[in-house]
């Protein structure tokens, strides 16, 4: 049965992203909170910017390397907990 859970990132205009060597610092304007992330998070945030995608949808745009769907789901969980990604069942 296909998982219909969808994820969405804030609009690009709501995030200020600055590269700091291999890490990326993100200022989330709506919350005023600063986060520090590494790849693949910035790519996910850009791909999901202002649009809802399921995990299937994400895998249609990206080929998962060095990991699998479970790893991706775990990253999404963390991003939801941090307030950077919205989730809808």
């Amino acid at each position, binding site marked *: 049965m296909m998982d219909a859970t969808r994820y969405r990132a804030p609009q690009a205009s709501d995030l200020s992203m600055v590269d700091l060597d291999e890490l990326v610092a993100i200022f989330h304007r709506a919350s005023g909170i600063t986060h*520090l992330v590494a790849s693949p998070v910035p*790519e996910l945030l850009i791909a999901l910017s202002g649009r809802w995608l399921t995990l299937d949808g*994400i895998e249609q745009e990206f*080929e*998962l390397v060095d990991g699998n769907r479970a*790893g*991706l789901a775990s990253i999404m969980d*963390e991003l939801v907990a941090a307030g950077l990604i919205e989730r809808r069942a």
Partner: protein
Amino acid sequence: MSDPTDHDQPAQPQRRRALRIGAAGAVAVVSIRPAMAQAYGSVLTCEIPVPDPGQAGSYIDPSGKVVPAGTRGAYAPPGRPLKGEDIRRALASGGNLPGVDYERSRAYLKYVQNLRSGTTGFTCFASLQMPRR
């Protein structure tokens, strides 16, 4: 022209970008929780009266609750307010407050840990919880 229902014809795959998932269990996001400005109070010695002045003289039971003076099994309050540094050390190491035996220390510390905003000493306790620089 290929027939859209002809499934023998291989579809032209879009070239997908790689998404490096990385080691399982690795942290993906670190949210910055900076030290509260009040944590700068580590420069000052902040103190927590036990119990707050409004209940001065009351006893502290082993669970940290304020109870009437003389209650059996409860402890008389410390003579002086507790120093922030001593509380921080005792909470971090599990040791006693200076000059106070184990059970009494635990009771006082439980009182401190139950402090709510608005009670005297809450700001000091809150500043003790913030990460040190």
